[in-house]
């Protein structure tokens, strides 16, 4: 189990690096698809079938949107420029990332151990969820009953994004 998980994560990181470094935008998007579908498998390994279903359909839709946008415009990333500014900013970024990585490494080992349960809020969900809400799927019970208010916010976010996309894609913003 652990080994599969680690392998999947390595695959995802490799996919991410390729997605960011590749010169062709279409292959960058496809490599991003590797990360997304890898994430789907990670969810399956982690006993989260709900998330796997949602992630696989959302990933497909994201790819459709991105590929549609690329086919409509251009596939080439413009040429990399080798000036002093670029090199300095790259060096600064790398230093920043190394600092952040060491910070993450130091703090993540103080987190509770992986695989042991650390329940406080969700103890009740697991023990009484079915009885109190009548839904066998506890994730559904959480998002639509215990934390339904969050889901209203989530639906609103999607609605806002639709409104925003309609606003942004208007061909003329101002009259006359």
């Amino acid at each position, binding site marked *: 189990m652990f080994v599969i998980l680690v392998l999947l994560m390595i695959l995802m990181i490799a996919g991410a690096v390729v997605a960011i470094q590749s010169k062709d935008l279409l292959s960058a998007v496809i490599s991003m698809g590797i990360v997304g579908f890898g994430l789907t498998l990670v969810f399956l390994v982690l006993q989260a079938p709900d998330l796997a279903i949602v992630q696989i359909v959302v990933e497909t839709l994201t790819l459709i949107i991105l590929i549609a946008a690329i086919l409509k415009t251009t596939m080439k990333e413009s040429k990399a420029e080798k000036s002093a500014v670029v090199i300095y900013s790259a060096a600064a970024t790398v230093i920043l990332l190394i600092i952040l990585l060491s*910070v993450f490494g*130091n*703090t*993540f080992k*103080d*987190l*509770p151990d992986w695989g042991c349960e*650390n*329940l*406080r*809020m*969700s*103890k*009740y*969900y697991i023990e009484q969820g079915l009885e109190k809400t009548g839904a066998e799927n506890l994730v559904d019970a959480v998002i639509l*009953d*215990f*934390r*339904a*208010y*969050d889901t*209203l*916010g*989530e639906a*609103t*976010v999607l*609605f*806002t*994004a639709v*409104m*925003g*996309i*309609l*606003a*942004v894609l*208007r*061909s*003329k*913003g*101002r*009259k006359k």
Partner: protein
Amino acid sequence: MNSSSVAQYLLPVLVALPLGGALLIQLLKKISKLTSDIIANSILLVLVVLVFSLLNSPMLVYKVGGWMPVKGVPIGIYLVLDGLSLLLLIIINTIGLISLIFSISYMKKFTNKPLYYTLFLLMIAGMNGVVISGDLFNIYVFLEVAAIASYSLVAFGTEADELEAAFKYQVMGTVASAFILLGIVIIYSTTGTLNLADIGRVLKDKATEAPIILTGILFLVGFGLKGAMMPFHAWLPDAHPSAPAPISAMLSGVLIKAIGIYALVRIMFNVIGVTPIFSNMMLCISAISMTAGVFLAFAQWDFKRLLAYHSISQMGYVMLGISLYTPLGILGGLFHMLNHSVFKSLLFLNSGAVVYGTGSRQLKRLGGLNQKMPVTGGTCLVASMSIAGLPPFNGFWSKLIIIMACIQSDHFFLAALAVLVSIMTLVSFLKVQRYAFFGSLKQGLTDIKEVPFAMCFSMILLAFLCTIMGALLFPGLKEIFIDPAVNTLVNGREYISLVLK
């Protein structure tokens, strides 16, 4: 049913009403052209009445879905209303109403007005949701509602530079959200709960452990990006000028406070607890924001861009007051937050009126507008004096309190800096007045007219508020409006026991 339990039921209405209004506009927009104007304005009016009826109410805790705590552990989402939330609610809804009245005429120049109103109401719903929420993840969700609405409103004109500014703003905003979400994940993995008060209880004496310190820094960076504090301010000078004027007023006057400073202060002061290192870090950031903002504003000739840089500088004052962590400092900071929302919205509305009348916002192309646009000129003069801190306008009193608080806690350097920045602000606004409103009328500006009634009305209302808001410091009014908010922060983690009792 006594009065406090009736007031309790108003809490979810503050979110549900603007949301329902936004949906109604989309469903009913075909009926008539006026539907969207009527629905949006009446909903904001009702919200303002609701918020003012909540004044003087005790601390309210509302459990969504009726999920009562089990063995003392909250299991549902809590909505919490205390003094600080109420202050923010007053700012959001009042400024929102005034900006909407301004929009009735101003947005006639844009296409698809119902869409604008829908996004505006969604932004209000998001901010109200953030402010009354007592749950960490819920804050994140509603913060995203407000943020996504604001990204698309910045690009509402769909000109090239507006789209650029919106893209930049959204990239920065999404990175900020990612930092905030990472913080939330770390908090959840250490505490196992998401309720703010419950998190505070679990973390009672863990504030110095490595993951919690990292969380504090992640929240500082995340909310700092949303609130445009100085090292993270890069999006603001592009985004705020690009938006339509009423939206600039909302962004500068309300949004950066509600989803930036409020959320940071609520989590750090009331839940995690402020360590000395953290408050010194905040003092540093605020001093840098204050000074650098005003210096950068100095070089600007674009009216709205200049105002945007002044926003960074004035938010520095707010942060300075709050992070001194003395009762007087917090009073000054919160009062300045209230005042800033009034005078900065007024200034952005003025700039909108100038653009509406003349079609330009470059100071060098303007001049002598006082002869043709007396209302805009007069209200802008009031707002300029207010932001520069001249008595008797509201900005003077709050800056005075902040400077006194600096001296009281032996930060003489910061006090001197605050005075210096105030003088620089005055000089900068003298420039605005000199180039735009006084002097002789430029050629090509001879046939401009004063803006329509709705725009004049909202500007006069805000100017009136600027003039009288110093009175909020009088005993009697101070206890109602400002003291509950100050007490929320001064008492710090007493919040936890108040919510959980």
